[in-house]
């Protein structure tokens, strides 16, 4: 089974968020970068499917040069090779534009299965996998926790709302967006990190893929959200703040 995993490099979760001078995106100068966590779950599912059924795991990622480090991390965990779509204006493209880049890179590979995370931790559109399926003319399903290979294709466990699940049977090739928590993420071993350096990382420039980049939806401006409630921040040492909090909970909120 040939499995493509589409991954995204996103700002590290703990990185401080500052709005850039343009007002259109965050200041990236001091950011640390990491693999989008739902994509890490997609990669893990792909690696486990390969371990069970054989085949190949190919990572695809779009973004500027720096994305290479996240791709190497995926290969250190066990992906066999990778394709990077070099694209310096990923943030200016809408969901359809990004999916067009990935679909163009994926199509040439003729995969049996395409996996990606259900959403990114930065822009959080949660659409890329679904649109890639549409562009490739493949069936898809979303919020998947587990994939089982069958004679006819695959069965997947899909998460629904409020603790419900559903099993869906579908043919291959197919596209799935993975929910987190369906399996346990592995760490890269030292040997894996060493091997990753020798694995194939092919780059292709976005412009070479011949997809229409004009966005239909633009991000005009970003801003800090307005507070919904006026929060009383209790300051002082941990002990002072704790004492003040308990006093408030007792006498003001009356919940103790």
């Amino acid at each position, binding site marked *: 089974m040939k499995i493509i995993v589409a991954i995204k490099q996103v700002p590290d*979760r703990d990185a401080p968020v500052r709005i850039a001078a343009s007002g259109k995106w965050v200041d990236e100068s001091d950011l640390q970068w990491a693999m989008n966590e739902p994509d890490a779950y997609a990669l893990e599912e792909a690696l486990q499917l390969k371990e069970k059924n054989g085949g190949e795991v190919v990572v695809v990622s779009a973004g500027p040069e720096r994305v290479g480090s996240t791709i190497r991390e995926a290969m250190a965990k066990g992906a066999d090779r990778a394709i990077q779509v070099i694209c310096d204006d990923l943030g200016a493209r*809408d*969901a*359809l*534009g990004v*999916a067009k880049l990935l679909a163009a890179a994926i199509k040439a590979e003729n995969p049996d299965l395409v996996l990606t995370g259900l959403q990114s*931790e*930065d822009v*959080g*559109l*949660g*659409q890329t996998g*679904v*649109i890639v399926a*549409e*562009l490739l003319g493949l*069936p*898809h399903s*979303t919020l998947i926790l587990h994939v089982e290979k069958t004679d006819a294709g695959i069965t997947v466990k*899909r*998460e*629904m*709302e*409020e*603790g*419900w*699940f*559903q*099993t869906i*049977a*579908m043919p291959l090739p197919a596209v799935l967006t993975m*929910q*987190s928590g369906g399996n*346990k993420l592995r760490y890269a071993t030292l040997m894996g990190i060493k091997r990753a350096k020798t694995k194939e990382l092919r780059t292709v420039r976005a412009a070479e893929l011949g997809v229409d980049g004009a*966005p*239909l*939806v633009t*991000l*005009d*401006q*970003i801003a*800090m*959200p307005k*507070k919904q*409630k006026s*929060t009383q921040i*209790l*300051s002082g040492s*941990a*002990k002072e*703040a*704790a004492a003040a*909090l*308990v*006093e*408030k*909970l*007792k006498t003001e*909120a009356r919940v*103790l």
Partner: protein
Amino acid sequence: MSGILVVLEDRGGKVRSASWEAVAAALKLAPVQNVTAAVIGAQTEALAGEAARKGVGKVVRVEHPLLAQYTADGFCAALQQLVQNESPTHIVFPHTYQVRDFAPALAARMGQALIGDVVAIEDGPLFIRQLMQGRLNGSYRHCGNGPCFVSVQAGAFRADAFEAQLGAAAITTFNPNLDAAQIRTKPGEPFREAAQTVDLGSAQRIVSVGRGIKEAANLNLVQDLAAVLGAEIAASRPICDNGWLPMERQVGSSGQTVAPKLYLAVGISGAIQHLVGMKGSQCIVAINKDPDAPIFEVADYGIVGDLFEVVPAVTDAVKSAKA
């Protein structure tokens, strides 16, 4: 192109409340008489009646035997035909798991990009949605000539905003052309895992823990606090994903929805998926090292600091208050 099409979602034979919120969002774009509500399924008479009584401009029953159970293929094919027939300027959905499953594909099929998970609509129209796990808001604009697809976040628009403005709406039926061969997935019946043994929904006090706790071994800090408060322990999704606490203790869109008297969030940044599960709590306390964490947007009281110092201090303070 004219008018707004709102695609209602149903569950258990009733229109879901999130669907009425989508109608409320549509009213930011056009007056109610220009709003058409669509119900979808194999038998939609009761749903259409319910929608018509709400006083939207018009109700369309999108009906076909192949729409009895939701599939992305069936819904995309049916709604594409409906949108071509109605030619609305905007198509508005509630941002549910089901909509996330098909609306991006539907928009792409029509050469458009969905503006998903919108929390506000401002003049322009500008569609506001959250970025960076709720730490920032982005203002999005639709350009180009085609219809604009929008989905709105649960709880962002007031469903009672349009109550009974008009009399009962006219109902029409739209039968899309569907072929069984178009539907490539075979969905099974919904099921639950092992019966839930924890009912967080009825808890009066909850101490909830997030990524900030760093390791499973540190959970005793929040367990001690919960013990002195007589509170249930709950968690955000990553804690349950890691297996540190059972899934049934998860609060949020994929877990339980709670509304206790006291909700104490420890090391939880407050991504929207968590907030939707707890923002109805009477009193919310947040302990987090990041002063810009979105949890502080919904908290009544906050302590910005290291939870490894603050939580034991709160535990001690509760003990002495009780003594």
